[in-house]
C-alpha cells in the first residue's frame, strides 16, 4: 500500500459550508427556507423551564406532613408573584399565625403530601440561537432550528477557548513566526479578531481583554499562560464555555510554534474581512475543533458540496510533523516503507521517510504527521 489516510486540519480559501443551528429544546424557528441571514441574526428561540426553588413548607409552618396540606392556599399550576401568600396556619384564637409567602415570581410546581416539600418554578428563560455565519437558510427543521449554507474561506484550529463571536480580521504581525508584542495592541483592535504569529503571551491576552478584542488567532500558546488566564488547569479537552471576554483559536499547538504558512497567508488575504470564529474544542468521539469562517461572495447555484476528500499520504505529499523531534516542521514524503520500523523509543511502528524544508532526511512515525493540502 503506497498510501495511507492521515487526518489533517482543513485550511482552504474556498469551501461550501453547512452549519446546523439547533435549539437545545424544541421552540420556534424565526426564519424561512431561502432567507438570507447575517451572522448576528436570530434564527430560532425557545423558552427554557425556569429554575426550581424547593423548600420545606411543613417545617416553615411548624407542622408535620401531611397536616400542612390543610393550610395551603395555592395549588400546583397557580401563577404567583413575590410576596403572595402560599400557606397560613389558623393560629391560636386567630393569633400567632404562621405565614409563608412566595420568595419569587413564577408558578407552583408541586406540593408534596408526603415530604411537606413545596416546589416553586421561576419564569421561563429565553434562549436564542444566532445564525453565526452569514449565508442562506437551506433547510428548516420544524421547532428545532435551521441549516445555513454559504461559501467561505475556512480554517480549523487545533485548540481554542471561548464561544462563538464575530469581528473583522486584523493582522498584527508581518510573518507567521513573529510573536506578538503587547505594544501592538491598541484601541483600534476593539471588536476585532487579531492575528498573532507564533505565540500569544499572558500579557498580550490581558491587554486584548482591556481594549475589548473579540478574538485572537495564534500559532501557539504556553500552557502556563493559559493556566494563569483561566485560573485552573484544563484537564480534559472539552472547551468553549470559558468566560474570559474573548475567544482564542490556536492553530498549531502549545509552546512557541510558527503559524503554518498557508494559514497565515489565508488570514492575510482576508485582512479586514468579517469572520465568525469559535474556540469550541472536544477531543473525543465526535471530535470538534475551533473554526475560523470567513464568508465570501457566492451565487446560490455554486452551493454544491464537494465530496469530502480523505487526505492521503503518498510520495510527494506535503506533511507537517506534529510531535517532537522537529515539531511543526514542514516536509515532503520521499518513501512509505511497508514494514514496521523501530524508532528511537524502540516502538515498532509504520513510518514514512521525508525530506524536511531544511534538507534534512528523516524517518517519522506516520501517526506523527498531518497532511497539508497543497
Amino acid at each position, binding site marked *: 500500500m503506497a498510501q495511507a489516510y492521515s487526518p489533517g486540519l482543513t485550511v482552504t480559501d474556498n469551501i461550501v459550508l453547512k452549519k446546523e443551528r439547533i435549539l437545545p429544546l424544541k421552540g420556534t424557528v424565526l426564519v424561512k427556507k431561502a432567507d438570507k441571514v447575517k451572522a448576528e441574526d436570530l434564527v430560532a428561540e425557545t423558552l427554557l423551564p425556569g429554575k426550581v426553588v424547593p423548600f420545606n413548607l411543613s417545617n416553615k409552618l411548624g407542622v408535620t406532613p401531611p397536616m400542612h396540606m390543610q393550610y395551603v392556599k395555592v395549588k400546583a399550576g397557580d401563577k404567583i408573584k413575590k410576596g403572595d401568600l402560599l400557606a397560613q396556619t389558623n393560629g391560636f384564637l386567630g393569633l400567632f399565625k404562621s405565614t409563608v409567602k412566595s420568595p419569587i415570581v413564577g408558578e407552583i410546581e*408541586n406540593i408534596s403530601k408526603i415530604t411537606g416539600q413545596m416546589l416553586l418554578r421561576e419564569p421561563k428563560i429565553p434562549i436564542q440561537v444566532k445564525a453565526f455565519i452569514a449565508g442562506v437558510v437551506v433547510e428548516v427543521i420544524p421547532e428545532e432550528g435551521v441549516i445555513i449554507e454559504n461559501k467561505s474561506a475556512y480554517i480549523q484550529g487545533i485548540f481554542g477557548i471561548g464561544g462563538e463571536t464575530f469581528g473583522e480580521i486584523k493582522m498584527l504581525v508581518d510573518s507567521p513566526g513573529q510573536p506578538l508584542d503587547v505594544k501592538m495592541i491598541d484601541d483600534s483592535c476593539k471588536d476585532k479578531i487579531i492575528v498573532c504569529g507564533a505565540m500569544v503571551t499572558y500579557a498580550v491576552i490581558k491587554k486584548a481583554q482591556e481594549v475589548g478584542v473579540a478574538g485572537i488567532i495564534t500559532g501557539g500558546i504556553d500552557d502556563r499562560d493559559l493556566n494563569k488566564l483561566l485560573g485552573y488547569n484544563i484537564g480534559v479537552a472539552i472547551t468553549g464555555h470559558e468566560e474570559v471576554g474573548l475567544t482564542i483559536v490556536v492553530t498549531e499547538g502549545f509552546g512557541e510554534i510558527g503559524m503554518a504558512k498557508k494559514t497565515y497567508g489565508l488570514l492575510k488575504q482576508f485582512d479586514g474581512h468579517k469572520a465568525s470564529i469559535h474556540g469550541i474544542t472536544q477531543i473525543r468521539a465526535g471530535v470538534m475543533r475551533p473554526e475560523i469562517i470567513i464568508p465570501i461572495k457566492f451565487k446560490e447555484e455554486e452551493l454544491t458540496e464537494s465530496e469530502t476528500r480523505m487526505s492521503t499520504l503518498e510520495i510527494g505529499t506535503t506533511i507537517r510533523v506534529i510531535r517532537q523531534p522537529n515539531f511543526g516542521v514542514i516536509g515532503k514524503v520521499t518513501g512509505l516503507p511497508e514494514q514496521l520500523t523501530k524508532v528511537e523509543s524502540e516502538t515498532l511502528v509504520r513510518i514514512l521517510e521525508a525530506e524536511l524544508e531544511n534538507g534534512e532526511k528523516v524517518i517519522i512515525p506516520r501517526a506523527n504527521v498531518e497532511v497539508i493540502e497543497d
Partner: protein
Amino acid sequence: MADARPLKRIIATDCGSTTTKSILIEYIDGEYRQTVRGEAPTTVEKPLNDVTKGVINAVTELEELARLKYKDDSIKFIKDDTIWISEKENEGVDAYVSTSSAGGGLQMMVTGVVAKMTGESAERAALGAGAIVMDLIASNDKRPNYEKIERIRQMRPDMILMAGGVDGGTTKHVAEMGELVAAADPRPRLGSSYKLPVIYAGNNKARDIIKDALGEKTDLIITDNLRPTLENENLGPARDKIHDLFMEHVMAQAPGYNKLMSWVKGPKDGKLVTIPIMPTPAAVGNIMQTIAKVHDIEVLGVDIGGATTDIFSVFTKNKVFNRTVSANLGLSYSISNVLATAGLEEILRWVPFDIDESGLRNMIKNKMIRPTTIPQQLEELVLEQAIAKEALKYAFIQHKEFAVGLKGAQRQREISEAFSQSTSGESVVNMMTLDLLVGSGGVLSHAPRRNQSAMMMVDAFLPEGITRLAVDSIFMMPQLGVLAEISEKAATEVFEKDCLIYLGCCVAPVGKIKPDKTALTAKIELPNGEVFQEDIKFGEVRLLPCGVGETAKATLKPGRGLDIGAGKGQEIKTELQGGVVGIVLDTRGRRPFTLPLEASKRVPLLKKWMKEFKAYPEEILK
C-alpha cells in the same frame, strides 16, 4: 453451565468508539483457541451511520485471513450481508456474540438516600453493569435541593437508577428524591422522542409514591430493592434491568444496532437464542469473575485507555466483584488531567533525567490535542510511562476507596478485629492476598519492552508478597466476557492460552527497614540450572530469568519486621511462575513505599532500578 457439544467456530466482535475488533475462536484438537483477528473502523457516524457496516468489514477481514491461513477459499462467514450462523459443522459459524462501547458507552446517574450506603450500592450496581456514573445524588450529600435539581437537569444521562431505604423502612427521603427528579424533568442524552428510563430499586414500601411522582414523566421500571437490608446487597435485579434497558433504549438509538441485535445468536441449552450485546466494561467484568471463580483466585485487572481507566477486582473468599471507572484519567484525551490530579512533582519523581517544567507541560497538552501521536524519542516514552504510573496509581486509589464492605451493616466482631480496629466499610482490596494482576490498554499492552509494562504495574500498584503479572495481548477480554455467556470453557481456555501474556511474578516484602539491612534472603533454583542466592538489602530490585511456562523453586525469608505473606520474618517455600519478563524481587518497601524528594538522591536510585528491570536502553540511564 455445562457445554453440550463443542462449538466449532465462534465469532466475537467489540464495537468500540473508533475501532470494531473481531476475533475467530475455533475448537482445535480438543481445545478452544483464538486463531485469527481482524479490525475495521467503527461506522456509527456519518456518512455510513450503521454499526453493522464496520462489523461486516471486520468479519470480512477475518474471513480473508482464515482463507489464507487454511489455504481454503471456501471458508465463508458472511452470507446475504449478515453473519452466517449454521448448525452444520462445515459452514458458517456456530455463534456470533458482540460487545459495544460505541457512542460513549452507557452513561448513568444514580440516586440514593445516604450517599455512603444506598447511594454507594446503587453506584456499584451501575458500574458493575458497565456504566459511567455521571453523578451520585443523595439526600445527605450536602448540596441544597435546588442545586441537585439543576444538576439533574444539566446532565443528560442514558438512564437513572434510583435506590434508597431498606425494605419496609421510612419512605420520606425516597419520596423527596422522587420529587427532585420529577422537578428536574431530565431528558435522555440521545434522541428527544422517548422518555428517560428510570429504574427504581429502593424501599418496596415507596413504590407507589415513586409511581405517582415519576410514572407520567419518565419511563419508570420498578425492580427489587438493591439494598433490602443494611446487611445485604442485592445488585443482580437492578443490573439485569440496566442491561435490558441498555439494549432497548440506548443501543436502539444508535445507528444500525437494531440490525446488529438480530445477528447476535448462539446455542444455549441446545437451542439457538439471542445473546444480548453487552456494554464492553460489563463483559470485561464478566471474564474477570469467571476466571476468579474457575481458578479460585483473587484477580485485579486494569484497562488504561486514552480517556478513562477502568479497574476490576475480585477479592475475598466470596469473590466480591468491584469495578471503578476513573473517567478522566487516561493517556491521551485525559492526559492533561493526570497532570492536574497528580501534580508535576509526582510525575517527575519517576523521571531519571532533567526536564524543564514548561517543556513538559506543553508536551502533555500537545498530546492531549493530538491524541493519536506516539513517542518517537526515548525521553518522551519515559515521560509518557511516568505519567501512566501516576494515572494508574490514582485510578487504583479511587478503586480501593470504592471497593469496600457494606457501610452501615452491623456485624459481630471477633476480639482480634476489635484490637485491629477494623470497621465496616473497609476496603476489600488486599494486595497481599492478590494472586494475579492483569494490565491492558495501549501503554501496557504495546510498550516497546514487556519489562516496561512489568515496571509500570509494579510501581503503580505496589503488589505485596507474591503476585503473578500479566498483560492482555490484544485486548480481547470484552469478547471473551460475552463469550462466557454461552461457553465458559471456550472463554477461559482462550483467556489462558491466547489472551494473556504472562510477564512473570513479583516478590515484594511489606514493611520498611533501614537501607543497609537485609530485606529478603532468597534462594531460587532457576530453570536454567543456576541457583540464585542473595541476601538482598532494602531498596533494591532484582530481575531473574524464568520463561513462560517455567517455574522456579524458591525459599524466601523476609528480613526482620518484614512480611511476604506468612507473617513477619516468616520464611516461605514456594514455586514462582515465570513469564516473558521473569521473576522480579522488589525490596523497595511497602506501606510505605517512598522515593527521596531530592533529585540528587532520587535519580541515581531510579536509574539503578530501571537498569535492573532492563526497562530502557543503557544510554539513557548513564
